[in-house]
């Protein structure tokens, strides 16, 4: 994964709660075996509505997506994160993310920015008033700010995940450094635990 230090840009305000991953990328797109080419599927059913926020010209070129409460609920499909990234977003802001979606973000370098509901609402209003409002997300400082609107807050990211963002580390490579511990763990697993096929 590519290292991410700072995300700066404008935002799209998607003012809906419970945006589930079936809306982010409908299941028809999940039949593909590739990891790229999902940008066209992003919110594809909602995008048929000309007034949908992603279709509004004033938000063209934005690289930050602001969602409502419970963003990314539902299916575990990582395709949702791929679609958001491949469309051009580098970060998503929400008062609350679904667990699997949030995990998937951190595996791909899409910054999940959890902020309190009041800040989220204020930021959405500010972006609606000024679609060119510049927002900066700093992964090292764990801050998000929009100075022109007088908005600034912090967001949480556990130390391991923050380090992986900043260093662009490969998760699997990190775990493989612990192979001796895994080997050791396997010597004392309970003997009746099920297994199939060849070892």
């Amino acid at each position, binding site marked *: 994964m590519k290292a991410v230090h700072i995300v700066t840009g404008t935002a799209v305000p998607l003012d809906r*709660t*419970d945006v589930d991953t079936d809306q982010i990328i409908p299941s028809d797109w999940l039949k593909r075996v590739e990891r790229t080419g999902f940008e066209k599927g992003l919110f594809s*059913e909602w995008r048929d509505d000309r007034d949908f926020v992603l279709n509004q010209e004033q938000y063209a070129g934005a690289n930050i997506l602001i969602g409502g409460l*419970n963003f990314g609920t539902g299916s575990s499909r990582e395709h949702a994160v791929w679609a958001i990234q491949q469309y051009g977003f580098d970060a998503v802001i929400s008062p609350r993310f679904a667990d699997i979606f949030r995990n998937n973000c951190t595996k791909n370098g899409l910054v999940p920015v959890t902020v309190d509901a009041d800040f989220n609402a204020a930021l959405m209003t500010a972006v609606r008033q000024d679609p060119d409002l510049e927002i900066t997300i700093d992964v090292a400082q764990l801050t998000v700010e929009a100075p022109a609107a007088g908005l600034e807050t912090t967001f949480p990211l556990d130390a391991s995940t923050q380090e992986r963002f900043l260093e662009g580390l490969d998760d699997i490579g990190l*775990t493989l450094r612990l192979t001796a511990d895994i080997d050791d763990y396997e010597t004392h697993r309970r003997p009746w635990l099920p297994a199939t096929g060849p070892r």
Partner: protein
Amino acid sequence: MAPKTLSEKIWDRHLVTAGIEGASDLLYIDLHLIHEVTSPQAFDGLRISGRRVRRPDLTVATEDHNVPTENIDQPIADEVSRKQIETLRANAAEFGVTNYPMGHPKQGVVHVIGPEQGLTQPGMTIVCGDSHTATHGAFGSIAFGIGTSEVEHVLATQTLPQSKPGTMAITVDGELPEGSSAKDVILAIIGRIGTGGGIGKIIEYRGDVIRNLSMEGRMTVCNMSIEGGAKAGLIAPDETTFAYLEGREHSPTGADWDGAVADWLTLPTDPGAEFDEEVVLDGADIPAHVSWGTNPAQVMPLHDVIPSPDSFDDPGLRDTAARALEYMGLTANTPMRDVAVDTVFIGSCTNSRIEDLRAAAAVAEGRHVKDGMRTLVVPGSAQVKAQAEAEGLPEIFRAAGFDWREPGCSMCLAMNPDKLQPGERAASTSNRNFEGRQGRGGRTHLVSPAVAAATAIAGTFATPADLD
């Protein structure tokens, strides 16, 4: 030693390394279930990095999301679906993973085949690139859904870095009213806690109502933990669990069985252990439920009227309700019993096990579906299908006008030929009523198998008692 909850005990047993100073724990994974949709890019990742599958013997694959539920002796007509299935077969062969392909006597929905083969046992950690993995928590295991990057991680290392989740106890006391089922219990729970209520937590379901459920019922409850946002959901193992497991293909035998049972009996939450959050429901307050909106917390008792957006104090919930009613084509304050459906789906990892099919068949027997009603009854696995056939259930369904199909995910998620058309309205025993979930423009109402069968017969939402 400090008292611990069931989920904390299982978590601690699986620590390869404990995270310190905010770092993640590294958790060993006992069983990794695979299907065709969320695995191809993970196997590609392994190939690119020159990595192997660390434990193919702890990895089991099956084909479920894309498979058609009729004419399965023919090649899959949809080229993209066919390619995805063929990719899984090739990956399983290349990496030495057992796969149960379409038509195989052990094939089925991934969350149905694990338990029925005895691969799901108490105290385990189980993952799958599928959010309904919590189903396996019914046996007292920590089971959760993961994304494709994590699938690759587990394939390569048999472990996952994870932050320890919080704990939540949901207790359902008392007894259910006549005609209520496990599905109604979990719909009522999600209605209570909301779609985000369980985020960051593992739910332990407790209380007499839960204890009195069969394993099939417990799987239905745990299955929809994700609809309440939870990382996982589980139920302490007990005699019901052991009776279900004994004699299954991968269950322990002989001295191992005795050792396993003795070990499993140490798993339940210790007296005095504390949960981060506790919710209590009274079973007597849980009649047959049905969803009215486009998220699984938008549920109501079937006997009630469709709520008005104005009845929600929170402006966010009010907007969401108004949008949902518009999408669903429903008018506030209409009795749900007056709402007509054109499609009934009985199946999915939530409700496609033998007990679900028996419940639906008991309602269908001696009756007939409403003229013009499209009905699909889809067993969760080839083994469930064989059992149903041995019990004569397909004959009952067919005589009542229901369409009896081959196992698969079917109409739960519109990745195979079984879909809703725009504007069609389904009573569905599946788990998600999201916009377009069962087909673009389709309208989904989540219900229990008995309500689904009764609704197919009545033509409008109905409980079995309404048919008399």
